[in-house]
C-alpha cells in the first residue's frame, strides 16, 4: 500500500559523484539529495523541472531554499517530503533513502507545512495541533499523557496558547501559519520542511515566523528547510542557502553565495528582476540606476542627509560627497521646521518638504 515504495528499484541508478572529492563534513547530514531529478510524470512522458540536484542539510541547520519563480522550489520540497516521486536520483534522510521509509516512519521523521491555505470551519487550533500526534497514535488517534505534553509544548514554543480554542477559520494569516507550524512541532520530527512559510504575511509577521524557525533550529535542534522569496530575511537567519539556478542547485552560507556573486546571478539575471541589484550593505534588492547628474547634499544630521539622498537617488540624481558640483541641496532648521534649500548655478530655492523639492526637481530632470 505504501505509495512511495513502488519507486524503490529506480533509485539504483543514481547520478551522484559531485561530493566525492570533498572531505565528508563531520556533522551528521540529515537530508541529502543525490543527483535528484525533480518534475512530473504524465504517463510515459517526463517533464523535468530541475536536476540533477545534489546538496545537503546538517543536523540543526536552518536552510533557506531560494530561486526564481517557477524554478521548482515547491516541487523540490514536496519531493523531499515524500509527497511526490522524483524522476531519478535520491533523497537520503538520516542515512536512509526516502523510499525505504514507510509513510508512518517518514511522518515521524519529517513534518511538512505547505503553501496551501487551510480553512476548516469548526476546527479549533488545539485540535489542529493535536493532529500532529497522528504518526504516534493508534488507529483511532487516542492521545496519551505524553501526547498532550507534546501538544502543550508545541503551543508554547509558537505562543499559540491564547488562541488554543479559536477556530482555524478565524485566525489571521500569520496566526494560521504559526498554528500550522505548531502542528508540525507536535509531530516531533527531527526534520521540518516548509514551503514559503512567510508568503502572504506582512513584514512583522515575516520576521516573527523566520525568527521562530531560527529558534527551533538553533535551540531545539530541528533541521529546517524552508523556501522563501525574502532575500533580506533569508540572508540574516539561514545557516545555509540552497540556491536553485537553471537546472542546478548551489549551496553555501549566504555570505559565500553573496561573495561569489552567485546569489545575485541566481536571483536576478534575467526577466522581471532585471534592473535590480543586490545592495552589499543591506542584502536588499535595490533598483539599478544609471549614474545620473551629480548632486551634493549637506545637512545637520546623518539621518537627514541619508533620507534626502535617497529621495534624490530615486529621482535619478547621484548624490555624492563632492562639493564642487553644480547642484547642491542643503537641509536647514529644526525638526518640524525643516527647509530644503536647492542651489543651482547661483539661483536659490526653498522647499518645506522633500516632496515639494521632488516636485520641482522632476520638472528639471
Amino acid at each position: 500500500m505504501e505509495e512511495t515504495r513502488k519507486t524503490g528499484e529506480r533509485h539504483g541508478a543514481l547520478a551522484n559523484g559531485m561530493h566525492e572529492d570533498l572531505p565528508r563534513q563531520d556533522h551528521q547530514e540529515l537530508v541529502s539529495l543525490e543527483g535528484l531529478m525533480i518534475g512530473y510524470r504524465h504517463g510515459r512522458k517526463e517533464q523535468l523541472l530541475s536536476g540533477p540536484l545534489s546538496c545537503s542539510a546538517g543536523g540543526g541547520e536552518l536552510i533557506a531554499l531560494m530561486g526564481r519563480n517557477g524554478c521548482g522550489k515547491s516541487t523540490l520540497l514536496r519531493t523531499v517530503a515524500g509527497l511526490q516521486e522524483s524522476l531519478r536520483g535520491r533523497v537520503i534522510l538520516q542515512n536512509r533513502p526516502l523510499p525505504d521509509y514507510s509513510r508512518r516512519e517518514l511522518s515521524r521523521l519529517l513534518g511538512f507545512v505547505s503553501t496551501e491555505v487551510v480553512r476548516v470551519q469548526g476546527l479549533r487550533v488545539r485540535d489542529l495541533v493535536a493532529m500532529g500526534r497522528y504518526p504516534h497514535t493508534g488507529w483511532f488517534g487516542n492521545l496519551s499523557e505524553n501526547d498532550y505534553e507534546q501538544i502543550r509544548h508545541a503551543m508554547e514554543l509558537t505562543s499559540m496558547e491564547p488562541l488554543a480554542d479559536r477556530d482555524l477559520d478565524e485566525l489571521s494569516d500569520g496566526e494560521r501559519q504559526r498554528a500550522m507550524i505548531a502542528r508540525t512541532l507536535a509531530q516531533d520530527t527531527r526534520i521540518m520542511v516548509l514551503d514559503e512559510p512567510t508568503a502572504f504575511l506582512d513584514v512583522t509577521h515575516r520576521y516573527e515566523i523566520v525568527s521562530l524557525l531560527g529558534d527551533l533550529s538553533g535551540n531545539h535542534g530541528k533541521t529546517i528547510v524552508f523556501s522563501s522569496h525574502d532575500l533580506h530575511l533569508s540572508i540574516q537567519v539561514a545557516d545555509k542557502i540552497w540556491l536553485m539556478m537553471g537546472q542546478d542547485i548551489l549551496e553555501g552560507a549566504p555570505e559565500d553565495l553573496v561573495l561569489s556573486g552567485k546569489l545575485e546571478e541566481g536571483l536576478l539575471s534575467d526577466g522581471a528582476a532585471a534592473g535590480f541589484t543586490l545592495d552589499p550593505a543591506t542584502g536588499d534588492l535595490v533598483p539599478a540606476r544609471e549614474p545620473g547628474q551629480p548632486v551634493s547634499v549637506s545637512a545637520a544630521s546623518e539621518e537627514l542627509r541619508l533620507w534626502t539622498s535617497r529621495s534624490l537617488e530615486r529621482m535619478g540624481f547621484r548624490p555624492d560627497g563632492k562639493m564642487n558640483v553644480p547642484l547642491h541641496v542643503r537641509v536647514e532648521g529644526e525638526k518640524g521646521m525643516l527647509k530644503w534649500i536647492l542651489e543651482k548655478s547661483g539661483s536659490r530655492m526653498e522647499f518645506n518638504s522633500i516632496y515639494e523639492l521632488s516636485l520641482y526637481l522632476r520638472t528639471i530632470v
Partner: protein
Amino acid sequence: MDRGRNFFLFGGLLILLLACFTADLFLGSVHIPAGDLLRILFAGHSEQPEWITIVHDFRIPRAITAVLGGLSLSLAGLQMQTLFRNPLAGPYVLGISSGASLGVALLVMGAYILFPHGEMRFRTWGIITAAWLGSGMIMLLLLLVSFRIKDIMTILILGILFGSITIAIVSILQYFTHEALLKTFIVWTLGSLGNVTRGQLPVLAGSLSAGILLSAGSVKILNAMLLGENYARSMGINVLTGRILLFISTSILAGTVTAFCGPIGFIGIAVPHVARLIWKTADHRVLIPGVMISGAIVLLLSDMISQLPGSDRLLPINSVTALIGIPVVVWIVLRNQRFANLS
C-alpha cells in the same frame, strides 16, 4: 466544558429522537387512537386485530427504516464532504443513486424490451438487488479509477460524469418502454420508506451496520483529510487506503438505502452542516454520532410531514426531504459565503 455541552446535546437529541420515533407511529392512513396504539406497543393486544398488523408490520418497520435511512445518508454525506473538501458533496456525489437507478431501470424496462409480451411482476427483492448491483458497479468503477488517479477532484468530476451517463442510459430505456413499467420506475425514483418489510429489516440493518463500522473506523483518517490529502500523507495517513475505506463505506450506506427506499435527496447534504452548527466542531469523533442522530431525527420528521397528518394522502418522501433540505442548504450557503474560497 465541551464534554458537558456534548453530553447535554446528545442526551437532548436522543430524547427528541425517541419522541419523533413514537410520534411517527401515530401517523398513517388509518387512524389509530393514542390509547390503542400504546396498548399495542406495550401490551401487544387490541380490540382491532388489524391495528396490530398495521403497527407491527407497517408503522414500526417504516419508522425504523426512517431512522436507519436518515443516519446512513447523513453519515455518507459527511464522509463525502470531508473527503472531497466540498460543502455541497453528498452521499450521491459518487453517482451511487444514478447507478442504483440504472440497475432498477435495466431490470424494469430491460425486461420489457427483451420480453415485450411477457407478464411483468417485480418482487421487491428483485428491485433491491438490481439497485444494489447498479450502485456496486459504480463503486467498483470509482475504486478502479482512484487506484490510477491521484487527484481527488478528478475523481469527483468522474463520479459526476458516471452519474450523467447512467442517467442518459436510463432516459433511453424510458423512451423505449411501456407506460405501466415506466410508472413502476418513476414510483421507485420518488422514494418510499414504507416498502421495507419486517423480513427485510434485518438485511437493511445488517448491511448499514457494516457501512457504519467502516466509517467509525475511519475517524482518524477523516480528521486528517480535513487538512487535505497532502497534509494527511505528511501525518502518516495512507490516503489510498482511506479513500477506499470511505468509498466502500459510502457505497454501502447510500447504495443500501437507495436500494430499499429509492433515492432520497438532500438529507445527506444538509444534515452534516446542521450537525457542524450544533456541535460547533469539525472533529469527526463528535460529528459521526452527531450526524447519525440528527439524520435519523430529520428523516423521521420528513416521514411525518409526508403522511400529511389529518389526511389519508401520502407525499413522496423524496419531495419532502428536498423541500426541507434545500432551504437549509440555501441558508447555509448564504450564511457562510466563505464557501466561495473553499478549494
